[in-house]
C-alpha cells in the first residue's frame, strides 16, 4: 500500500508481541499529558520537596556546610523512619494533585467519543485496555513517590555507610509498598470515576469530592461521638495509618479526653477516654474493599457497547 500507488495492501512485516501491546496506550497518553503547561509546571513542583529533603540529608553528613550555615546537626530533622514517612505523605499529596489533573479524561474521553469499540476490536482485551490506562497514572505517580523516595534512601545510605543501610534496609519495602498501595488506590478510583462520568470537569470534581467530603464527614463523626472511628471513611486518614504501619510508627491511641460515661461500671462519671485509631487491619481492609469496588465498576463500564437487557 504505497502512497503513490493508492492501492490497498496487506501488512506483511513484523508484529510486536501481544504482551507489550497495551503499552502503546500509555505512550500516546503521556505525550498528550505533557502538552499541558499546567501539568508540566505542577509536575516540576512535585520535585521541590525531594530536592529539599536531599539537601537536608546532605547537610546531615557535611560538617563544613553545617559550619558555614551555623547550624547544629541536632537542630535538623533526624533521618529516620519518620523522615521517610513524612516524605511519602508529602509526595502522596502531590500524587493526588497529579491524578486529579491526568486521570479524569483517560476513559471518559473514550466513552464520550465512542472509541471503546475501536480499541476492543483490536487484539486487546478489556483488562489490557484498563491496564494501559492505569499505566499512565502508575508511571507518573511512581516518578514522584517511590522513585525519588528510594533515590533519597540510597543517597542517605551512601553517606551514612553500610551499617545504616543494613539496619534500615526494611524501609525500602516500606517506601515501595506504601507508594504502590497509594498509587493503585488512586489510579483505580480515578479510572472508575472516569468510566462513570463523561465530562472531565465533573470527573475531576467527583474525584476531589471523594477525598475531601468523607474526610470532613469523618472528622464531624469523630468530634460528635468522641471517637476516631470516623477515620475509617477518610481515605487520607486510612492511608496515613497504613503508611505509619509500614514504617513501624503506628500507635492506636492518638489522644485522650475527659468525658462523662454511662456504662454498667460507670454511672455518668467523669473519666479519661482514650481515643483509638481504627486497627491497622481495618485500614487495609477498607483500601482492599475500595479497590475491589473500583475493579467491579470498571468491569461493568469498560465495554465496547452497553447491552440493554
Amino acid at each position, binding site marked *: 500500500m504505497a502512497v503513490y500507488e493508492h*492501492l490497498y495492501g496487506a501488512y506483511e512485516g513484523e508484529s510486536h508481541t501481544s504482551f507489550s501491546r497495551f503499552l502503546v496506550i500509555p505512550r500516546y497518553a503521556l505525550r498528550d499529558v505533557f502538552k499541558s503547561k499546567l501539568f508540566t509546571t505542577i509536575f516540576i513542583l512535585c520535585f521541590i520537596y525531594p530536592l529539599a529533603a536531599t539537601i537536608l540529608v546532605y547537610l546531615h553528613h557535611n560538617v563544613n556546610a553545617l559550619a558555614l550555615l551555623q547550624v547544629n546537626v541536632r537542630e535538623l530533622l533526624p533521618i529516620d523512619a519518620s523522615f521517610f514517612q513524612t516524605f511519602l505523605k508529602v509526595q502522596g499529596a502531590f500524587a493526588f494533585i497529579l491524578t486529579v489533573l491526568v486521570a479524569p479524561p483517560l476513559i471518559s474521553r473514550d466513552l464520550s467519543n465512542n*472509541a471503546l469499540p475501536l480499541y476492543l476490536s483490536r487484539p486487546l482485551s478489556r483488562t489490557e485496555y484498563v491496564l494501559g490506562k492505569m499505566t499512565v497514572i502508575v508511571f507518573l505517580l511512581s516518578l514522584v513517590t517511590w522513585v525519588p523516595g528510594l533515590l533519597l534512601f540510597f543517597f542517605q545510605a551512601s553517606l551514612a555507610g553500610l551499617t545504616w543501610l543494613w539496619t534500615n534496609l526494611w524501609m525500602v519495602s516500606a517506601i515501595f509498598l506504601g507508594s504502590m498501595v497509594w498509587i493503585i488506590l488512586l489510579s483505580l478510583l480515578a479510572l472508575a470515576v472516569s468510566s462513570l462520568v463523561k465530562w472531565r470537569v465533573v470527573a475531576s470534581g467527583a474525584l476531589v469530592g471523594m477525598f475531601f467530603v468523607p474526610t470532613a464527614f469523618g472528622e464531624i463523626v469523630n468530634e460528635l461521638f468522641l471517637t476516631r472511628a470516623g477515620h475509617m471513611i477518610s481515605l487520607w486518614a486510612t492511608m496515613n495509618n497504613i503508611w505509619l504501619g509500614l514504617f513501624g510508627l503506628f500507635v492506636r491511641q492518638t489522644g485522650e479526653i475527659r468525658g462523662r460515661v454511662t456504662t454498667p461500671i460507670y454511672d455518668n462519671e467523669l473519666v479519661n477516654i482514650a481515643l483509638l485509631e481504627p486497627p491497622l487491619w481495618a485500614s487495609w481492609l477498607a483500601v482492599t474493599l475500595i479497590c475491589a469496588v473500583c475493579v467491579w465498576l470498571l468491569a461493568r463500564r469498560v465495554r465496547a457497547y452497553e447491552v440493554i437487557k
Partner: protein
Amino acid sequence: MTSVIELEQLSVTFGKRPILKSLDGALNGRAIGLLGPNGAGKTTLIHTLLGFHPPTSGTARIFGQDITTDAKHVRATVGYMPESDSFIAKMSCVHFVRLMAELSGIPANHALERAHEALFYVGLGEARYRPVDSYSLGMKQLAKLAQAIVHGPKLIILDEPTNGLDPPTRSRMISLIRQIRDGGRARILLSSHLLRDVEECCDEILVLKDGHIVANCNLEEERKANRKFIELETRGGNRAGFVEGISGLGCEYALSGERRIKLIMQETVEISDLYRLALEHGVQIRRLNFKRDSLEDIFLKAMENGNAATNGRANNGSV
C-alpha cells in the same frame, strides 16, 4: 478451502431476550452483504464475531479460527468500521490511525508509514494532520475506514459505511469498497440498510430476520439464473398460436394481461427462435425485457419466506 465466516448454531441472548437464534451457515463471498430490517440482529452478529458479546450457545469461526477460543487472533485478522461516530479526541487523524495500527501489532515506525498510506488511499491525505474531531461527517467515515484497513486485515467489517453521506462521498466510499474487494487481498462483510450499496458491492448476501437467517445466496449466481426470465409485450396476430409455439419450444410461460407474456427460457432456445415464432403467427413483439430479480425482490421474497417460517414456528410452538 476455509470459509470466511462459519456459523455453527450461534445463539446470543441479552438477559432473557434471544437476539440471534441458532444461526448456521458458511459465507464465502469476496464481499458479503448483511441485510435485514431493524432489530434483525445484524449489528449483534457483527459484535459477536468481534467478541463484544459472548455467544450463549454455539460458535462462529472466521477463517477457521474460533471467535470464543481464539478471540485475539480473530481480531488481529479483522478490521472494523463501526456504525456510529468513533474516534479518539484531541488527536490528529494520522496519529489516530497510527495508534490503531500499533494496537493491531504493527511496530511504531511501520505504523506511521501505514497510517500515511491508508489516509492517502481513502482520500484524506491532505487533511491527515487535522484533529479528527474537526472533520465533517464524510471525512470521519473515511477516517474510520482508514483505521479499519491500516493493518491490512484479511476481513474488513463495515457497519453502515455510507450512513449520512452526501452522494459524492457515498460514491467515493462505494468505489473504495469495490476496489478493496476487487484487489482480492481482503474479504468484506458489509452491513447496510441501503440495498443499493449492497447490490453495488457484494457478491453474496445473508438476510436476517428476528434473529434467524431467512436467506443466504450468491448474488452472482442469482443474477446469472435470472437472465433466463424474459418478459414480452406483443400486439396483434395469433397470440394463442404464438403461446402454443412457446410451449412447444419447452419454455414455461405465464400470461399477464392481454399483451404481456412472461417466460422462462430453456438453455437450447435462442431469442431468434421467439422472433421466428412471432413471424409465423403474425405477432408483433413490441418489447422484450430480460426480467431480472433486483436485490430488492430477493430481499422482499426473503422477508415473506421469513414471515411464513416465523408463523410456522409459532404454530408448531402452539401445537
